[in-house]
């Protein structure tokens, strides 16, 4: 883990929403990436895994479902902007601290790895485990 991994989920990242919560997610890579690079979004809250169907990604003021990210080669996530990971979670308690486990995988489109006939983008993984209060 490098210094930028500490930045993925900052202390002030958690917010309550009308139907659950959202997290501000920052990049652990040094340059802007397209939405197709958001390859792994494994989130668990208070030990409970969040289903992808309950996630919405908000970037540049636009909302995307997880499957829609696969077509996002021309939508750019600027390196200094957090994106908002919105999660539908009825009964979420905004007054209590919550434990976040976030496995984040960025597909790095210009670094190809693997055997010559099966090269694929490097997966740059980052893992965050921290307890946060809603801001």
């Amino acid at each position, binding site marked *: *883990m*490098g*210094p*930028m991994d500490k*930045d993925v989920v900052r202390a002030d990242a958690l917010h309550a929403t009308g139907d659950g919560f959202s997290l501000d997610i920052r990049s652990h890579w*040094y*340059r*802007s*990436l*397209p939405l*197709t690079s958001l390859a792994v979004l494994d989130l668990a809250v208070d030990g409970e895994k969040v289903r992808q169907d309950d996630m919405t990604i908000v970037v540049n003021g636009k909302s995307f479902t997880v499957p829609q990210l*696969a077509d996002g*080669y021309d939508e*750019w996530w*600027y*390196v*200094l902007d957090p994106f908002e990971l919105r999660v539908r979670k009825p009964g979420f308690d905004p007054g209590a601290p919550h434990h976040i486990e976030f496995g984040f995988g960025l*597909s*790095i*489109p*210009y670094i*190809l790895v693997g055997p010559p006939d099966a*090269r*694929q*983008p490097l997966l740059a993984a980052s893992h965050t485990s921290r307890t946060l209060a809603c801001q």
Partner: protein
Amino acid sequence: MTANETTVALPKLGTTLFSFTLEMRQPGYTLNGMIGKVAELGLGPGLEMVGFQSLRGYPRVSGEVVSSFRDQCERTGLEPSAMSMNLDLGIHRGRLMDEDEALDYLEPQIATSHAMGFPVCKSSVIPTRSFLEGLVRILEKNGDMKFGFEVHSPMAVDSPEILTLRELYEAIGSPLLGFTPDFSSSMHSVPPSLIAAHRESGMSPELTQLAIEVWNSDTTMPQKFERFAAEAPALGATPADMGKLQMLLTMHGRQDPRRWSEIIDRVVHVHAKFYGIDENGEEPSIDNATIVGVLVDGGYTGYISSEWEGHAYTDAVSGWDMVAAQHKLLRGLLSERTVNG
């Protein structure tokens, strides 16, 4: 200067803004502010950037951003040195770009780099004659910009990819196609800053020692990986440790620095990669004196662009201080060559 001494044309120093990857994340960051600080601290004259890092919306950049950049360079005396572009071959899920798509992807990046005043651009390539010929056509349309494929660890001047490119360059015969040597390919030891970071993260001294031994052995990369995979688990290596130490083997190459002379005629830009400066003002893992000697002897007069990459391991030092210290080291080495060529 005495009658027997002659001046020689020397490389110029510079900096890539990539060195300040962590500083960029501090509150109050602006691109103009960062460029201003490069000028104020005397870390030019060469100014390099990664387009996808420094410019929002790149390669679609407004005329206003372009003219503001050019004006600031003019005002401060900084000189655009090279634009680091990216060839994102894997941008589509499940498939790689073909050659036509790849050229279409680079063209706007080259046009933007040219508009901003960069004389050189760099990215990876598809190593075929047709791709490189297509690339030359785009470079010619953009003021004959030069292109410098980066020779970065684990590659070296004689690795298969680079030998292929050297042959294709010769066959095509365009003066616009060149190389950007990166000092990471020609290191003599593992950076102490990296070892320290791994130990701080809880890795055992026995494990880091094994990695250093394997790195120093005269074996091929596959053999190094094999030995490491065989011996590291017994020393308690976790999968995360294995990943980090495999990166160590990949990101730091052991090419003899004198061998940069083999491609010196095609060098269009240089990355002075570094991972630390010790209390004596030296880079503890890279023989800068020998590399600078090769560049000067080879007649290279382009930019040596400082690239601080220790930020991948530690945020305990300032990128500004590190680049300033490396410039002092490089200036000293170049000043030894200003006379007696």
